[in-house]
């Protein structure tokens, strides 16, 4: 209202001034005109400014925002509540065509075995996380799972991480405790964010689903325009693919590098390479404690991920391609107590890979296909006929899935697997899975 009046005055002044200036020279007229123009703009600017000041005063009455640089203040990392608490409910119904699901040629840990048949409540996860103060972030994830009729609580993650306020160079961060460490693509992700109901074969076999040893890791994002991140870690060497650490000290170490970027507006990619290397001074037991290994293990991983949103809006339609290649070298001693092989010297390498494509064709529906394959090592004569002898068979698995996402907090998935893990045994698997979360829901990594 006020504004309209004022602009009226400005026009009046303008009229008056131009009349008054009639007798003056052209130059004077122009000068006056521009002055008036300036005045007019200034006025309107000031009015708008006043109005907005008024708005601001009103706003500030019920709100106080302090921009401070004070240290020692508790600052939430993108979360209002401290701590943020989240729960993941994860249940499945599985149906398998084959009674057994041995994986030929490999030492397989408990988590790497196929899921239970029938109804099963898979890992129920609890997560607490918060910025501890201005320098540290902490997070705990524990899972309740059932194993052979017993309910077990697993401490999946319990780590602290330096925040940028800690004072390390920009882009550098240290994480310590127990965590799903940076290794390949899937390892640092919780399985509830996976695109399939089960992990691909190389994860089940080489990492017993995921590597979450106790240790410390440093990472650094380079100050480049292209995303480049490098890092390294030192660990206890207590988790698959390593055995129980017999002594104190660092039993395993890792290194990784990643690059990534965008291609035009709607595509992005990331490439990574990692190594984790360690020794099992104590022995690593697997295959229901029938197989033991003592020795060195080097695991090399290459991973690639590509996302494409055809319409620009990835929430509507999106294609995700992802693949990882693993190569493992083992130098130690294997013993198969079932086949009574005794201790056999083993120095050989095996590998495995998977590739998958997931297409979101509608905001709620996605389709996916995955292929995984393993290439077992050639066994020394002492292990012929043991669990490590694949008889020339390469375990492989085909999977297709379709999932329905009601919101970012609930998802239901149907999956069909065709697994050929041992010579002559084909297992058709059908799974219905739900994954739901409530409470705080951490932002997802790329």
């Amino acid at each position, binding site marked *: 209202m006020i504004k309209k009046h004022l602009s009226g005055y400005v026009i009046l002044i303008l009229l008056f001034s131009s009349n008054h200036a009639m007798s003056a020279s052209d130059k004077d007229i122009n000068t006056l005109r521009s002055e008036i123009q300036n005045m007019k703009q200034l006025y309107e600017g000031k009015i708008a400014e006043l109005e907005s000041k008024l708005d601001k005063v009103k706003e500030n009455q019920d709100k106080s925002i302090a921009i401070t640089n004070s240290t020692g203040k508790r600052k939430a990392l993108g979360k209002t509540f401290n701590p943020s608490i989240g729960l993941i409910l994860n249940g499945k119904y599985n149906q398998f065509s084959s009674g057994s699901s041995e994986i030929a040629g490999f030492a397989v840990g408990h988590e790497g075995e196929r899921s239970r048949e029938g109804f099963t409540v898979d890992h129920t996860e609890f997560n607490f996380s918060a910025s501890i103060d201005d320098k540290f972030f902490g997070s705990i994830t524990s899972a309740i799972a059932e194993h052979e009729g017993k309910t077990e609580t697993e401490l999946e993650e319990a780590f602290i991480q330096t925040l940028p306020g800690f004072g390390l160079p920009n882009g550098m961060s240290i994480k310590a405790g127990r965590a799903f460490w940076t290794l390949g693509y899937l390892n640092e992700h919780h399985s509830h964010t996976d695109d399939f109901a089960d992990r691909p074969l190389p994860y089940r076999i080489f990492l017993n689903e995921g590597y979450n040893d106790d240790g410390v890791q440093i990472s650094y994002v*380079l100050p480049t325009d292209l995303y480049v991140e490098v890092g390294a870690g030192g660990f206890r060497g207590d988790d698959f693919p390593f055995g129980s650490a017999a002594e104190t000290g660092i039993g395993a170490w890792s290194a990784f590098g990643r690059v990534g970027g965008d291609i035009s507006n709607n595509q992005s990619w990331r490439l990574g390479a990692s190594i984790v290397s360690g020794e099992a001074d104590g022995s690593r037991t697997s295959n229901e404690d029938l197989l033991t290994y003592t020795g060195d293990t080097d695991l090399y991983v290459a991973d690639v991920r590509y996302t494409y949103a055809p319409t620009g809006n990835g929430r509507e339609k999106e294609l995700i391609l992802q693949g990882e290649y693993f190569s493992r070298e083992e130098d130690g001693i294997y013993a198969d107590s079932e086949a009574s092989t005794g201790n056999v010297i083993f120095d050989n390498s095996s590998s495995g890979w998977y590739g998958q494509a997931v297409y979101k064709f509608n905001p709620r529906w996605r389709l996916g296909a995955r292929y995984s394959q393993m290439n077992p090592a050639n066994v020394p004569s002492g292990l012929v006929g043991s669990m490590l002898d694949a008889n020339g068979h390469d375990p492989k698995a085909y999977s297709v899935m379709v999932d329905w996402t009601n919101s*970012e907090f609930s998802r239901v998935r149907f999956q069909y697997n065709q697994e050929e893990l041992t010579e002559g045994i084909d297992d058709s698997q059908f799974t219905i899975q739900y994954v739901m979360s409530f409470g705080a829901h951490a932002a*997802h990594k790329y």
Partner: protein
Amino acid sequence: MRRFFALILVGIILLTSHLAQAEVKIFACEPEWEALAKEIGGKNVKTFSATHAKQDPHHIRARPSLISKARNANIIFCSGADLEIGWLPILLQKASSSVQPGEIGYLMAADYVPILEKLSQVDRSMGDVHPKGNAHVHLNPHNILLVAKELTRRLKIIDEPNNNFYQAQLDNFLSRWGTAISNWEKNDFSAKKLKLVVHHKSFSYLFDWLNIKAVASLEPKPGIAPTTKYLQSLLINLKHKPANLIVRTPYEPSDASEWLSDKLKIRAIVLPYTINGDKESDNLFKLFDRTVSLLQEVNYD
């Protein structure tokens, strides 16, 4: 291997020395804030927008390119009010200490404007709602003014030697923006009966400013995609309570609004929503010019 590391080291040194003399780097979460940063910062800032008009700012992947851009930024400039909660926290983890929440380089527009649709009680069954209120604050031009001033204040502190430059840029912008606002406000929407159906509550600030009424939303609940069942019931409701225009943003899918438009025989249009939301809207002034004129077209039909 050793040569490779040496090469990386040299690269780091070269880049860091380059950084020291560079402009203020502004990482904007949305194109509207990038445009504002350009208005105020002019030649002294280097801007980057994490999203473009075809992307839904709620749902962005914390993709590698964003991590590196945020890591190098001096100011992270976003809508705030949890709009970017799904991806910004990950970027901040690897960004510098001066752009963390509460610091000078962390600028959330929603902290400086009056917020609409604040909720005292929030339950996930209400959809993807945020207790902090509606975060799409930029479509009220008075909010742009408020945020422009806060941005200037920050720039003057971060890049002190250019203090006067930023003040002059702000004064210039305020006067042009003030004039533009009075022009837009000459359009009177309150007298006419513009009744809109929106896709998501993305235009609440625009409608609040122009006194326009949104009568329904195509999403059954905020953030929940339209379902056939819900659209059917909406159709019945709208027959009793007529609407005369359906609007959506460039990133929202067209199927639901086209379907309803066909059934109700009313127009469905895309409002540009942000910079480059259509080919005319390539700066803040043109974004509002275009938005107001698109609505005016229907208003005086």
